[in-house]
């Protein structure tokens, strides 16, 4: 189980960005973080990843990892960013960088086997020797996920992973993430802007505003009132053939 308890962070003391965030996710559960730009989602992710030092607790199975070393943290949590950058490396080498926390200085045969297995699972084997920078946006996003999976983490953090992708690739990446959560029992914490995708995708929702989580729960918490409160827009929930869709305005 992954838990965040009373997490607080401020870039300047007088302006707190996170004002005591609490959230919990079970193993293999997908938690979707929703909120306007500037609500504190990216800062929360950076605190979870250890890129920023916050006060409060970050717990894995009741063990506080907020003071764990970078290597220990990398074995537990992996990151898939929105802006992808790899350098001029092959797909295989890019994914192998995900093993650094495991191998230390020199990559061994077992690390190469893990990479080969991950590439196979994500159907990237045929492009393993290609330069990542010559791939399409969707393929590059899959390589970023493969790099994260090569860390063999207990949790994946996705920061708006489909922001630069077309609808087809967006569906492909979300489908992949869902498969990873259910098959590998990896907990996922993800920030998504598109509420309709979020509804289809998440198990648990955390609606964030001004550095606090205002609403927590299942898909039922996404309604006209909470959307208006968190995003400041009018919305209507339409239902057809057992599926819900959010329509804005009106």
């Amino acid at each position, binding site marked *: 189980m992954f838990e965040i308890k009373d997490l607080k962070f401020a870039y300047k003391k007088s302006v707190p960005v996170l004002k005591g965030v609490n959230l919990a996710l079970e193993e293999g559960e997908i938690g979707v973080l929703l909120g306007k730009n500037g609500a504190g989602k990216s800062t929360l992710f*950076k605190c979870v*990843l*250890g*890129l920023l030092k916050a006060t409060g607790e970050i717990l894995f199975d009741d063990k506080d990892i907020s003071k764990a070393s*970078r*290597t220990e*943290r*990398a*074995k537990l*949590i*992996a*990151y898939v*960013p929105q*802006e992808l*950058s*790899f*350098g*001029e*490396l*092959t797909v*295989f*080498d*890019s994914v*192998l*960088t*995900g093993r*650094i*926390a495991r*191998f230390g*200085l*020199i*990559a061994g045969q077992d690390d190469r086997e893990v990479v*080969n297995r991950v590439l*196979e699972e994500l159907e990237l*084997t*045929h492009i*393993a*020797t*290609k*330069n990542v920078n*010559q791939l399409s946006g969707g393929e590059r996003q899959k390589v970023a996920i493969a*790099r994260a999976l090569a*860390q063999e983490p207990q949790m994946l953090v996705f920061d708006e992973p489909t922001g630069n992708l077309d609808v087809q690739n967006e569906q492909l990446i979300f489908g992949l993430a869902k498969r990873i959560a259910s098959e590998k029992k990896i907990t996922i914490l993800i920030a998504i802007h598109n509420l309709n995708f979020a509804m289809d995708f998440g198990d648990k929702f955390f609606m964030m505003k001004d550095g606090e989580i205002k609403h927590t729960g299942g898909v039922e918490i996404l309604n006209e009132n909470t959307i208006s409160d968190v995003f400041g827009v009018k919305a209507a929930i339409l239902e057809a053939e057992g599926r819900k869709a959010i329509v804005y305005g009106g």
Partner: protein
Amino acid sequence: MESVATNVLEVQKKMRIKKAIIISSLFLLTVVMFFVCWFVGVAKMSVKDCFEALGHRGDVNDINALIIWNTRFPRVIAAVVAGAGLAVAGLIMQTTLGNVMASPSTLGVSNAAVFGANLSIIGFAGGFLSSGADFAKTVNTFNPFAVSLIAFLFSSASVMLVLALCRIKKFSPNTIVLAGIAIGAIWTAGTTMLQIFATDVGLSAAVIWSFGDLGRVTLTQDYIMLGFVGAAIILFFCLSWRFNAMLGGDNIARSVGVNVTALRVTGLLVGSLITAMCVSFLGIIGFVGIICPHVVKKLLGHNHVVSIPITALTGSLLLLFADTIARTIANGIALPVGAVTSLLGAPFFLFMLFTAKERV
């Protein structure tokens, strides 16, 4: 799926073979160039004379042995070591600063070394204790080791100063580059001030010192450089995968377990100290640290496991080649090797830049 995996293994095997062939060829070429650089020079000796002289080390009556062992051997060793060191320092600077324009001197080490050397030559008449800038003292007390030592002390102090300042901004790459330029400008201004007060002899000595020249090096200095540059390249090679992770940006590198700040400071400090040592012993040798990493990255990609050893070999090869040209082209006058590296390197680099196919 199995056939796809088999194909990929085949391609990976072919890539490994290709890289092994390139490394072996470069190594062989460097060995050949080492002997060419050793055996060719102002004194026209036949290959047979050269090989015979190899067996007469220490024989003060054999003029050929003296030329081969006392004059040429230290400079070819310097070419191999300084070429490898400067090229790898350039590569690591470019990676740690995420800046393709970064060079071994980005932190202002060369400017600081030149200031230190000028201070020693002009201010202390080329020694430690003498003072004044009169002709007799400059001629009589000039001590190359003192000049190199003071140049090294100033360039090391400059690196420490830049890094200490940048600690305030958490070692942000852009801040480091700009701080390096600013501190370098201060040293250059100081050098100009010193030169205003120099005698003609002192000024000439100071200016000539700053030309990159392998001829002034001693075997002891070679061994000091070899020890430091060798250890630095081994250290960088061990950190190859961490540098690879850094290519994806600081946040990605941190998320896979890399201590980015420590890696950046280590890379900049060790890379700058390599440069400081080479400049202090040999003067300024430009362009090796820019051209070699770029050519290697363009041909073989950015994986540091491959690019660090190949960049080192390429640097040695370029400096051996440039030194051979520098000593043979001007009919008895050895040109500054620093000028030859740029003169030969820049057109080749431009050719590569505009004609080489992008790596797959």
